[in-house]
């Protein structure tokens, strides 16, 4: 069911000739399919997957090379000539993270836009935006550091111009504001009510033709951000794909005097404000998520970086900004990814980190405020679609950030992980890395799908820059009825507490609740603990004038169940992760045919009655309420497990049922792990090995630990019950096939109607109907 460009056929036939990326993005999107859209009740919310994703992918693909006949070098030379003729001062700066802009521009796509040149279609930064960001930096960062406020304000007005608008009238009337009526210097009786700015901000062009990349924004709590429903772990993520420029691309900026007699001082000030804004605050959209950071690579003539440093330090001293920097070091492998889930986007994206910080931040407050208040408080700190958050997070890779292809078998073999105790049990590591290395059907063919991970030891410098913010409450007409000023010292501890919680209990990336993607608590946060997080949270609610009220149905620190902290003497992190997976699996196996297992999260293929809450029943999803963490303490590994009782697993607003079940789960798993960790097995004491898993490499040593039986194909016979994974019909005939992981045998299920969950990837228990190991043939029979 192909989509078409909704244009008359005569025009449609010509669209393929188009080489202009901007036209492709705005006007030639394949967004229409009559058949698809005429179905009543069809899920139209999939615009992002059906239309937006293919469109931005196409544009990213087309942008890899310069369109034929464009000659960007020639255009750029002309831009330089124009700037030189204008007497402009130029400088160059390089993107240090992703850059995107004009996302919210009204078009036929949602938040997919980027600013492309109207004539030539390359990405650029419009002068209007640069002027705006320079002004914002001047007013909010530079001005407070100046001793002569009136003179400083006049300089801002000289650079940017002024007009008799309501804002300025208000500023002049305000005795605390440095704005004053401006007079003609040659005739002090004449008031000048308006003036254009003395400095011209030119568009910034890329030094070379710049390719675009597909980026992703993944809203994990749509109904919370949209309708202020509780942000429970039952929501389905809603990805939005957009275009961005990646790190390492150079742009040329130019500023010029409007007339020759404009003093140099103004040009220098404007340049320093612009550079300060580019380096400290970011350009374009999503700056709070670290987008739009630049680093100067060619300094302008009139410029002093000392001035910018002084301005920034002054703003910190005046509490106009606050800053916190720390180094995060990875303790366990992290399955990080962007939209491609490939090697090139296996990196720690600031957006990923922010998403996790938001989650942990909510746990500090959810027990004390309702969902609408939580949303408002979160908006103040972390931002929403209407206003920028108070915390900007930037991430800079330091050492050892190396993506490695995950090959579960090689990891198992090279690290000599112990084999599972019986054929009904899968490898602990495989149990907890489900979906990171498996077979999938792509383009009609079964293909191995493997994710990349970053190895432990990788380090990033994380900077959080904080600005003052207002916590405000609006009525339903959008009028502010209550507002409270939040200083940077109110805001920064919120971000620090969230980071501490993330580093102490959580992780980032896929499988972050299974002990993957865990960071060491950075030295800068070593004085923090759970009590301190709760204290700063209470203080913040007080600053927002929110007294404790009934909380909302989201994970909270107040109901969090903490298991015993387990120090581990082992050196091999794969062993630790494997044993955690094995212990969790052993616990789940106790409920093999019991619907109570659903209390450990969904989707799960279990039959029987279980009273799910309304949200979970609707989405058939709930992230695991258990979070495993592998941290470091005094040079050794330490394992922590916490549980967040859910009001919906089962439906019980008091969370008692969930609490009891999770307490039992944590106790059982902890006891199991304690006994496992007490054995100093040979391979566990060896440093972990991280096989690259790249194709063409020889398989790992393959030797299994002496303590466990050597791997051999399990002897199976007809009538045995086995756990299998539902897979695609190898011949694509739509029959129901399953794979027995331990033997690798794939066969059909002879009575598919008795299989409750036919989803690809679902794990179910079946009987072996017939088996021939020599010919590698197998057939399964569903359990009735």
């Amino acid at each position, binding site marked *: 069911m192909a989509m078409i460009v909704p*244009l008359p056929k005569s025009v449609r036939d010509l669209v393929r000739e188009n080489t202009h990326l901007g036209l492709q993005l705005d006007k030639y999107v394949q*967004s229409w399919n009559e058949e698809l*859209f005429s179905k009543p009740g069809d899920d*139209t919310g999939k615009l992002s997957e059906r239309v937006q994703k293919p469109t931005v992918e196409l544009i990213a693909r087309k942008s890899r090379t310069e369109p034929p006949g464009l000659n960007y070098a020639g255009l750029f030379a002309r831009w330089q000539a124009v700037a030189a003729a204008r007497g402009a001062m130029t400088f160059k700066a390089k993107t240090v993270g992703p850059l995107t802009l004009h996302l919210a521009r009204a078009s036929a796509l949602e938040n997919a836009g980027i600013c492309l040149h109207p004539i030539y279609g390359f990405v650029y930064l419009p002068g209007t935006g640069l002027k705006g960001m320079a002004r914002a930096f001047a007013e909010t960062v530079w001005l407070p550091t100046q001793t002569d406020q009136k003179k400083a304000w006049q300089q801002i007005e000289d650079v940017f111009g002024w007009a008799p608008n309501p804002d300025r009238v208000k500023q002049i009337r305000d005795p605390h504001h440095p704005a004053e009526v401006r007079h003609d210097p040659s005739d002090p009786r004449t008031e000048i009510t308006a003036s254009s700015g003395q400095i011209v901000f030119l568009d910034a062009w890329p030094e070379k033709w710049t390719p675009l990349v597909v980026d992703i924004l993944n809203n994990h709590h749509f109904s919370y951000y949209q309708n202020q429903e509780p942000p429970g772990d039952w929501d389905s993520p809603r990805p939005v794909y957009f275009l961005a420029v990646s790190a390492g691309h150079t742009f040329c900026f130019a500023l010029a005097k409007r007339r020759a007699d404009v003093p140099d001082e103004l040009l220098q000030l404007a340049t320093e404000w612009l550079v300060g804004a580019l380096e400290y605050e970011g350009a374009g959209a999503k700056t709070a998520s670290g987008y739009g950071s630049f680093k100067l690579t060619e300094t302008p003539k009139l410029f002093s970086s000392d001035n910018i440093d002084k301005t920034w330090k002054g703003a910190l001293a005046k509490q106009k900004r606050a800053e916190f920097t720390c180094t995060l070091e990875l303790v366990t492998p992290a399955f990080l990814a962007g939209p491609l889930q490939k090697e090139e986007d296996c990196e720690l994206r600031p957006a990923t980190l922010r998403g996790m910080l938001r989650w942990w931040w909510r746990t500090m407050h959810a027990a004390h405020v309702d969902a609408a208040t939580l949303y408002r408080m979160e908006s103040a700190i972390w931002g929403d679609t209407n206003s920028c958050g108070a915390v900007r997070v930037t991430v800079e890779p330091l050492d050892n950030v190396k993506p490695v292809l995950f090959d579960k078998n090689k990891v198992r073999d090279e690290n000599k992980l112990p084999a599972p105790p019986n054929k009904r049990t899968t490898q602990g590591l495989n149990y907890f890395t489900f979906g990171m290395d498996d077979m999938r059907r792509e383009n009609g063919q079964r293909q191995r799908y493997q994710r990349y991970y970053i190895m432990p030891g990788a380090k990033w410098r994380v900077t959080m820059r904080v600005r003052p913010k207002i916590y405000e409450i609006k009525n339903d007409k959008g009028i502010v009825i209550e507002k409270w000023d939040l200083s940077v010292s109110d805001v920064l501890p919120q971000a620090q507490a969230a980071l501490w919680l993330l580093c102490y209990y959580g992780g980032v990336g896929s499988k972050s609740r299974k002990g993957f993607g865990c960071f060491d608590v950075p030295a800068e946060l070593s004085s923090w603990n759970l009590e301190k997080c709760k204290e700063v949270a209470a203080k913040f609610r007080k600053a927002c004038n929110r007294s404790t009220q009934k909380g909302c149905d989201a994970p909270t620190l107040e109901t969090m169940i903490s298991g015993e902290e387990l120090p581990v003497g082992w050196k091999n992190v794969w062993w630790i992760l494997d044993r955690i997976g094995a212990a969790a699996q052993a616990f789940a196996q106790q409920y093999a045919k019991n619907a109570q297992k659903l209390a450990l999260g969904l989707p799960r293929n279990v039959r029987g009655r279980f009273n799910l809450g309304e949200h979970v029943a609707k989405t058939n999803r709930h992230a695991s309420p258990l979070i495993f963490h592998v941290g470091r303490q005094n040079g050794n590994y330490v394992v922590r497990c916490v549980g967040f009782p859910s009001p919906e697993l089962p439906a019980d607003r008091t969370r008692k049922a969930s609490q009891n079940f999770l307490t039992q789960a944590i106790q059982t798993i902890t006891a199991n792990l304690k006994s496992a960790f007490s054995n100093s097995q040979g391979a566990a004491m060896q440093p972990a090995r991280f096989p690259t898993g790249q194709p063409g490499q020889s398989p790992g040593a393959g030797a299994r630990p002496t303590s466990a039986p050597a791997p051999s194909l399990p002897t199976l016979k007809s009538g045995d019950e086995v756990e299998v994974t539902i897979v695609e019909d190898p011949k694509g005939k739509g029959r129901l096939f399953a794979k027995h992981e331990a033997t690798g045998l794939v066969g059909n299920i002879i009575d598919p109607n008795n299989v409750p969950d036919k989803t690809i990837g679902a794990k179910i228990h079946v009987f072996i109907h017939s088996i021939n190991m020599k010919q590698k043939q197998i057939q399964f029979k569903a359990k009735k």
Partner: protein
Amino acid sequence: MANATKPEKKTLDQRRAEHAWQAVQAVNPNKKDQEAKKKFEEFCRQAKKLPVRIIASGLGQALAFLKAKNYAPKLLVALGDWVLDKRINPDSKKPEPDDMALLKAVVEGDAEFLRWATDEVLAYLQWLVRFADAEGSEGSATTD
């Protein structure tokens, strides 16, 4: 003065305004029905955004987007009814078309039709947006 007694023939713009007014009234909830009110607000919001979308992305893209999101089906119906029928036949008694009629006409028509329809939709939306603005803000003012 003799003309004053005769009913004046309405200009095209007056007819656009009349149709747009009726289209807005058809969605404007009279009762305090929260659900209907929400739909009306969405109708107004989408009507206001539509001209910019058309200018940025073209009529077909803008209509396809609205249809895919299903934000304001009545808006698509009103546009189709005006452009395809009432604009040409003021006394037409034909029932309103479905919400994909105009889009289908764009895809099946020629470039000439697309240019004409785009101009007509933009002219019609000038009125519709005014009424949506006026009625929409009045609607929210009476919520308390």
